[in-house]
């Protein structure tokens, strides 16, 4: 909106004003509701806990919140593109660029990743018979770093400074010379802070899986979700530091006039290499845990063990390994030359082999089984054809010369939504319905779950299938407008209808959660799905330290075989020392310090940088000389004597 006041042109960003107004009206309502329902003790309990279930739930809750935010961005995008030569609200030019940048970045880093890490938090310790993650305090820190990064990124829009260089932030567009505002500083700090949290989560997961498995649960007897989590964590450990380095270099270019990505000494393509050496493994960081979830669910709901277990594990590892050798397939048009292009084309095609093995193993797990069509299984069934469609366009994209046509068009947009929504988002939904009883003690309503599934899946295909054709007809990505002569109106129109169907399906999730918790029914028992893995041997919701008596595992799906033979799982004679839970507000303090630090850098206020930096450093010093576990250890030693 713009108007003249006393002869001056006043430009008001009405979208930002609308956001502020809705927060000012909405926030007091939420606060009032929390107070009235006496939820504050619960909130405080979750905020200061180091329990893996609670932290996992927090990851999921905030990921869903960000999901709705980034989903609304997507609807704005679709509204602007609904017809040719359209002008929807303010979303043209820079505003449109901000909205697609926010949508992409948020969906990848603050929705997909935390949804999966949240599910890992909840399920992995229970599936391997651990009482908690190996480092509960670090786990809380990891969550708060994700939340801080997410909130910093989230806040950008409210200060009318959302990042606008795309989620890939290609230099030199992302350097100070071309985008001088604070916008892309939000991008740098949002990702830097949350990325550190992700690395912590990965370390925690690796140590937990390697060290805290129940007696007899060899790696070769482990369910596939912990396997996928283990491999994913190694990918994170290698890939995320690369992102951190790239962001740091970009920060130096932007703030201190360094020339890593610009000028005589630097080169813009360095950024692309660094970004995709992180970025391509990232795709598998998103996909592998989903594969793990689907393996467990398909096996459970077919009442059969996983077909070809060994090849499933090898395929996971191979995909992870090859994931590091394919980054330049994002750069076929850069002009790296035909040798580099064909090399990366072939490595990319090779990934199709282990992926194919997994798909056929899933199909043959279902063969000769008894397939129960409950909500988690429906999502798993929806995943197979959807993901295969995304996978085959992936192979088409791998063909380097052909990719020069697809690259940076809606064909690519369609492809990556098919693989990421097909695997990660459907996987996260499946996991959410599947493990919801473990988190809360209630099973989500199956009928509403099915509504959610069908609306989402149909909406999804309506949205993204036509985009393949729009791309082949010459529609580049990241454009806010097209002409009638472009001949892409029909595709875009159908896309928009589909997007709103997906949006509507998400309302069923909210309704489902509301409905499930409104009725004061008894909690379900430990095993609502007739499960096969260890998490179904402990009560729902799972208490702290559920494995006081360690189960002894003698084969895969030990719980299932015990149930078949009508016995209970044998337990070990001696309990095992568990990770020690604490109540702590320290992560909250660190979160505040890093927020101050980040805003100091984003707006270039040196005093705030010093304040936030000193506070963060002080926190580390404090932690270095402080271990709340000492007391517990001392007590243990005394008990032993």
């Amino acid at each position, binding site marked *: 909106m713009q108007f003249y006041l006393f002869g001056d042109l006043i430009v008001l960003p009405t979208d930002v004003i609308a956001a502020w107004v809705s927060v000012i009206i909405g926030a007091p309502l939420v606060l009032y509701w929390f107070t009235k329902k006496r939820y504050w003790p619960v909130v405080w309990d979750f905020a200061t806990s180091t329990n893996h279930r609670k932290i996992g739930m927090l990851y999921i809750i905030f990921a869903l919140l960000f999901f709705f935010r980034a989903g609304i961005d997507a609807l704005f995008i679709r509204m602007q593109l609904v017809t040719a030569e359209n002008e929807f609200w303010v979303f043209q030019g820079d505003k449109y660029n901000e909205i697609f940048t926010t949508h992409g970045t948020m969906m990848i880093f603050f929705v997909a990743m935390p949804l999966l890490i949240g599910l890992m938090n909840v399920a992995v310790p229970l599936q391997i018979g651990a009482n908690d993650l190996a480092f509960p305090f670090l786990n809380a820190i990891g969550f708060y770093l994700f939340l801080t990064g997410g909130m910093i990124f989230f806040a950008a829009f409210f200060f009318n400074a959302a990042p606008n260089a795309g989620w890939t932030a290609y230099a030199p567009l992302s350097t100070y010379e071309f985008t001088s505002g604070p916008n892309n500083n939000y991008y740098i700090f949002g990702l830097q802070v949350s990325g550190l949290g992700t690395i912590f989560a990965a370390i925690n997961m690796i140590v937990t899986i390697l060290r805290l498995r129940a007696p007899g649960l060899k790696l070769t007897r482990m369910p596939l979700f912990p396997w996928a989590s283990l491999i994913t964590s190694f990918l994170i450990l290698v890939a995320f530091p690369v992102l951190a380095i790239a962001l740091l270099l970009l920060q130096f270019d932007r703030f201190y006039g360094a020339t890593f990505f610009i000028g005589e000494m630097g080169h813009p393509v360095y950024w692309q290499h660094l970004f995709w050496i992180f970025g391509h493994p990232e795709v598998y960081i998103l996909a592998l845990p989903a594969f793990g979830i689907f393996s467990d669910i398909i096996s459970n709901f077919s009442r059969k*063990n996983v077909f070809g277990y060994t090849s499933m594990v090898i395929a996971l590892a191979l995909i992870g390994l090859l994931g590091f050798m394919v980054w330049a397939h994002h750069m076929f048009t850069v002009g790296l030359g035909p040798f580099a292009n064909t090399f990366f084309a072939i490595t990319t095609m090779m990934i199709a082999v282990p992926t194919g*093995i997994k798909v056929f193993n899933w199909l043959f797990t279902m063969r000769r089984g*008894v397939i129960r069509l409950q909500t988690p299984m429906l999502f798993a069934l929806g995943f197979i054809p959807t993901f*295969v469609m995304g996978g085959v366009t992936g192979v088409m994209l791998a063909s380097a*010369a052909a990719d020069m046509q697809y690259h940076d068009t809606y064909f690519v947009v369609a492809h990556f939504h098919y693989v990421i929504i097909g695997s990660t988002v459907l996987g996260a939904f499946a996991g959410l319905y599947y493990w919801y009883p473990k988190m809360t003690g209630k099973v989500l309503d199956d009928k509403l779950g099915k509504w959610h599934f069908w609306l989402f899946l149909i909406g999804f295909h309506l949205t993204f*299938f036509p985009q393949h054709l729009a791309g082949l007809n010459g529609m580049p990505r990241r454009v806010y407008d097209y002409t009638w002569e472009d001949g892409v109106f029909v595709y875009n129109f159908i896309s928009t209808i589909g997007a709103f169907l997906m949006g509507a399906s998400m309302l069923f999730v909210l309704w489902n959660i509301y409905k499930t918790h409104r009725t004061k029914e008894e909690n379900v028992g430990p095993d609502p799905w007739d499960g096969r893995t260890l998490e179904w041997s402990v009560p729902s919701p799972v208490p702290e330290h559920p494995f006081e008596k360690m189960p002894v595992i003698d084969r895969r799906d030990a719980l299932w075989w015990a149930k078949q033979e009508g016995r209970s799982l044998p337990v070990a004679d001696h309990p095992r020392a568990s990770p020690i839970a604490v109540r702590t507000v320290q992560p909250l303090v660190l979160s505040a310090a890093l927020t101050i630090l980040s805003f100091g850098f984003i707006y270039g206020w040196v005093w705030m940088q010093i304040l936030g930096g000193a506070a963060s450093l002080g926190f580390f010093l404090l932690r270095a000389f402080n271990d709340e576990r000492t007391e517990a250890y001392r007590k243990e030693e005394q008990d032993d004597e």
Partner: protein
Amino acid sequence: MKKLAMMAVLLVLSGCNLRVLDPKSQTASDQAFLIYLSFGIMMFVVLVVTVLFIGFTWKYRETEKNRYDTPKHEEGNRTLEIIWTVLPIILLIGLAIPTVMITYDVSDIGATSDETLHVNVTGEQFRWTFEYENGKQTHKNLVLPVDQEVVLHLTSNDVIHSFWVPKLGGKIDVLPGEENQMKITPNEEGTYQGKCAEYCGTLHTDMRFDTEVVDQEEFQQWLEE
């Protein structure tokens, strides 16, 4: 089912004349061939998976009869697993060989003859500049003679752009401080859309141009105007 029906409707609507699949140069034809080839191979994969998927889901779904059955334990099947490892490898080799050949072909600038037309293409926020050997400059339209080899020398004044005329061939990035080259030989007269394909800032959307392919005489006339 829904997906298939939708696909059919869309194909009718689009009339199958998608720009990328309507090539007007050898380069674009080669690329369209690769697209069709990979699409064909991949449709075979999709077909196999779909048949198995629908078959298994239907045949083994829970019914009144099997509700309380316990399926037999099944570790795996070596033969089957070898089949679905080897078969995709063969299919991929079938795609990899033409991919390598065509990728080398389309990237090859090779020796240019005296006949070859050279055009300097400069990208900047948010317009293109096409400069011919005699110094003539245009922004909105790139005029090329039909059936003559053209080498484009592309560079950028600011951020990264990408030069793309779907009917004449795949895109090539336009980098600051670097020259990329692209060789095309348009083989049919007409006016073809050109676009910037790499996101380059506020008005990235508007960074378009027309490529007019005309006959030799007309081109010479235009060049000397």
